[in-house]
């Protein structure tokens, strides 16, 4: 099982919406059973880092850079570049 974390400033609204969007996209590929998606508050990221394979970011976090593949979550809100970003996530998870 792979884990994607989606984080925004509050762990409310935007990260959860992006998580649902990712769930839909994974479901369309029949990959839902392979991936666990967690919508979290940005302050909780360190707690999840050991278990997460991919981080989908919606909020900039200053100088902080995490040691796992990181992707642009805003594209899933605007729809612009979303399919490209999704393919990159699948590649990082070795699922495509």
């Amino acid at each position, binding site marked *: 099982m792979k884990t994607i974390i989606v984080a*925004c*400033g*509050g*762990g*409310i*609204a*935007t990260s*959860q*919406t992006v998580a*649902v*969007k990712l769930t*839909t996209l994974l479901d369309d590929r029949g990959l839902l059973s392979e991936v666990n998606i967690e919508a979290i508050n*940005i302050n909780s990221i360190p707690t999840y880092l050991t278990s997460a394979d991919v981080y989908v*970011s*919606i*909020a*900039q976090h200053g100088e902080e850079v995490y040691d796992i593949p990181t992707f*642009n*979550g*805003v594209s*899933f*809100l*605007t*729809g*612009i570049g*979303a399919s490209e970003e999704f393919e990159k996530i699948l590649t990082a998870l070795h699922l495509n």
Partner: protein
Amino acid sequence: MSASLLTEDCVRVGVHATDRTDLLARLSADLIAAGIARPTFTQALLDREARYPTGLPTRAIAVAIPHCDVEHVIRSAISVTRLAEPIPFHEMGANDRTVQVSLVIVMALSDKTSQLTTLQSLIGMLSDEARLNDMKNAPDAHHLFSIINEQISSPLAARP
């Protein structure tokens, strides 16, 4: 039964604002006066927007979705404001970029989960170019309200 997230009196078009702070302070004051938000809401919204900006470079019309933590809200509601002239917001996830925003949707949320389906429908509109065009071109507040209300009242239709 919970009250509707969006009521027609919380939708306005042709609003003038000098900048983001001016606009968000006024929209916050309206939500506080309506008993939706607590007095701390204004500062919380401004602080959150400064730290985690919400401007989105959406198609057709750029949108911002300011929001803050649940403790500043009494009951969940949203307000929708279409501006007469766009004002700059920083871009979500890219604080060094600005986006000229014409549609501001303030999301006052009193808990993290109960309105999630409605929020997903609402935010789902932001990747739908046809809906964004409809919101951009709605002739008045009533039409704008109807477009959004129709979308968030039928969440099952919102699956992208």
